[in-house]
């Protein structure tokens, strides 16, 4: 029996109709609108981060050239561009899109609730996030320009203005990051409590769709890892502005402390953004392979194991920072260990595909693309996790290429997979499959052409954060490879226009989407597309797990969670 709304609770529609533009789009407490706010802010920041990558890649391939739309990149501008490219893509694109937008949109819809448990806290979380983005953008326009001391903001570059040459930019950068953390802490508490408390009647722990689990575990990881860095950010702000010396060895401080605080957060953060993407892939491959997720509980335990282990690997970022070699051994072992559960997750996904009736729709292509590219990212990570090898590879383009082979699948491929899959639900219209596939191939091929050459450069000893490699005789000969990578980047960016054309055209002119265009099981597909305020007229009740596809003895090959047996 579906849960009926008690008579004494006012139905949303009464309070809903005749909303002004402001209360509907800007000050809404509806989780779907807040998700859209996060998503569009994230996309906007992504365009800025992408533009920065374009500017500094042009400088690397054609040193000193007048970059179209930017101009000549000066050395300090170059540093500011790489710094803010990294920070924006992680903190203002991956986090808001994967955790905040997907979490806000999917958690209530997938657990059968009409909103988050704290709608106003949710709104506040977005508003603080927006302020953090504005503070970061403002930092580009202060005297000295945006912060130019690398996205990990290690002291003394971050604490001493004479080194970074960005006296105001560095403080604004730290403030922006701290605000962003505050926003996601609020959002995280909301996600966790909503998933724990507001599930539809009948939805047991193992009936929760994997993507919800993943976002919740990611929120817990974020919450438990970010604290030391918040404390560190306060200490760094004091070092910058109040004359303390927490990170200044001349006056009794220690710059390595910052690296510990940063990476204690920084490494779990990798899993904070990875897990939602893994969850998205799980939803998509089960739907388009028409198969039950292989070993649901194993995946879950794997994720818990990864979460616990992720707190014990941070010093693998510091193998060359002068840590005790015996400690380095310990962190090598934990780092290699953490690849076990993730390799297992990959095998579980491949096992899910095995024997399924696979349809290669656009979202499915993105999901498969995620598995293929992330595998390369994971395998190259093992080289870096071994402390001996890392001493050679540390701070080379090998690290950079490895990192992008993990983060690009997570943030970009994960996003495209999610948006092409849930677009019909979000906007009530279907996307164009043909354009979607052109966009997929036009992204995934150039992506590999950008970063495989960078692995080669890294193995050749090319160091990161160098303004102009032609000044280095032993690296100058590799210039054609750099040009190749940059041209691949331009090709990849131009194919993104296909996506935006498809996205906006489909939003307004695409064919109307039915309730359940993919014939999926999870609850969000049982309501209208797009869902009304309050999500359902009658909130659903759950009778089974989310992945009952191709169950023997049933006429249809799917079995929605809310359908009575």
């Amino acid at each position: 029996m579906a849960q009926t709304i008690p008579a004494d609770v006012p139905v949303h529609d009464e309070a809903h109709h005749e909303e002004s533009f402001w209360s509907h789009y800007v000050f809404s407490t509806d989780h779907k609108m807040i998700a859209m706010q996060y998503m569009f802010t994230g996309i906007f920041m992504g365009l800025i981060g992408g533009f920065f990558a374009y500017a500094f890649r042009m400088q690397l391939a054609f040193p000193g050239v007048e970059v179209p739309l930017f101009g000549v990149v000066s050395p300090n501008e170059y540093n500011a561009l790489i710094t803010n490219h990294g920070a924006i893509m992680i903190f203002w694109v991956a986090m808001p899109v994967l955790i905040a937008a997907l979490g806000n949109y999917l958690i209530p819809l997938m657990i059968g609730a009409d909103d988050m448990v704290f709608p106003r806290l949710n709104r506040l979380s977005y508003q603080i996030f927006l302020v953090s983005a504005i503070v970061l953008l403002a930092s580009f326009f202060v005297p000295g320009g945006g912060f130019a001391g690398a996205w990990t903001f290690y002291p003394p570059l971050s604490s001493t203005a004479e080194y970074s040459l960005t006296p105001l930019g560095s403080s604004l950068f730290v403030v922006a990051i701290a605000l962003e953390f505050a926003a996601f802490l609020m959002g995280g508490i909301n996600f966790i409590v909503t998933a724990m408390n507001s599930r539809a009647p009948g939805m047991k722990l193992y009936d929760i769709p994997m993507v919800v689990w993943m976002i919740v575990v990611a929120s817990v990881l974020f919450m438990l890892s970010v604290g030391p860095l918040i404390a560190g950010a306060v200490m760094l702000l004091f070092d910058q502005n109040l004359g303390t010396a927490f990170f200044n060895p001349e006056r009794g401080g220690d710059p390595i402390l910052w690296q510990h605080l940063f990476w204690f957060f920084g490494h779990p953060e990798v899993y904070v953004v990875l897990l939602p993407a893994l969850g998205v892939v799980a939803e998509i491959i089960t739907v388009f392979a028409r198969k039950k997720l292989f070993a649901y509980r194993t995946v879950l335990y794997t994720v818990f194991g990864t979460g616990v282990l992720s707190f014990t690997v941070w010093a693998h970022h510091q193998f060359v920072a002068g840590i005790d070699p015996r400690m380095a051994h310990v962190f090598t072992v934990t780092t290699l260990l953490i690849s076990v559960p993730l390799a297992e997750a990959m095998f579980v996904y491949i096992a899910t595909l095995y024997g399924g009736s696979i349809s290669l729709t656009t979202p499915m292509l993105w999901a498969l693309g995620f598995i293929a590219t992330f595998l390369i990212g994971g395998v190259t990570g093992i080289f870096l996790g071994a402390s001996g090898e890392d001493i050679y590879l540390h701070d080379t383009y090998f690290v950079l290429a490895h990192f992008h082979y993990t983060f690009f699948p997570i943030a970009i491929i994960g996003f495209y997979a999610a948006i092409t899959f849930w677009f019909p639900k979000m906007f009530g219209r279907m996307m164009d499959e043909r354009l979607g596939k052109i966009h997929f191939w036009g992204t995934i091929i150039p992506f590999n052409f950008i970063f495989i050459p960078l692995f080669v450069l890294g193995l050749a000893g090319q160091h990161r954060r160098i303004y102009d490699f032609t000044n280095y005789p032993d690296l100058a000969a590799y210039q054609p490879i750099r040009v190749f990578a940059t041209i691949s980047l331009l090709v990849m960016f131009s194919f993104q226009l296909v996506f935006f054309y498809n996205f906006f055209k489909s939003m307004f002119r695409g064919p109307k989407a039915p309730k359940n265009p993919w014939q999926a099981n999870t609850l969000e597909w049982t309501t209208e597309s797009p869902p009304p305020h309050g999500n359902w007229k009658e909130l659903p009740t759950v009778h089974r797990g989310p992945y009952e596809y191709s169950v023997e003895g049933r006429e249809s090959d799917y079995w929605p969670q809310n359908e009575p047996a």
Partner: protein
Amino acid sequence: MSARPIATTRSAAGMPTGRLAVWWLIASEIVIFGGLLASYIMFRLAHDMWSEQAAHTSTAIGAFNTFVLLTSSYFAVLGHKAAEEGDGPKAARYLWYTFAGGATFLAVKSYEWTTEILHGYTIASNTFWSFYYTAAGLHALHVLAGIIIIAIIAVAARRNEELHRVELIGIYWHFVDVVWIFLFPLLYIAK
């Protein structure tokens, strides 16, 4: 928001939503203070000379503040008990006592810091004092936020509204108390 979403009324985990959220909030706060204090302890172990600096903190004032804060937590417990019994005005009265404790704590702290700063021990003096002001300052901010929330809840409780919030602020207040229990020995007693 004129209508509360049904989501806010459910409790699938068997614990009221507000209480669950406060516990998660505290979990996130523990790692903030934990990171700061772990850094402090690691530094302290490496710098013997800090004890000379620590000798200039006033254990007596710190002990008095500990007493004040613990007493205020006791009133928070009594307030919770009154709220459980449905006696809003009584709960509000106890919350105001808690408020008074928090305010006294802050007043004493201002006096203490003023004296120390006038004697030349500022946040930039050396790393011990940097930690001293940062950790105690972060804690004082929590006390300040706590008493503001206590005032808001007390005003509502007097009218018998939102009585479940008395418990929530109580949990938070105990946490602020416990943080101080760590800070007091680390910053004042260890010399």
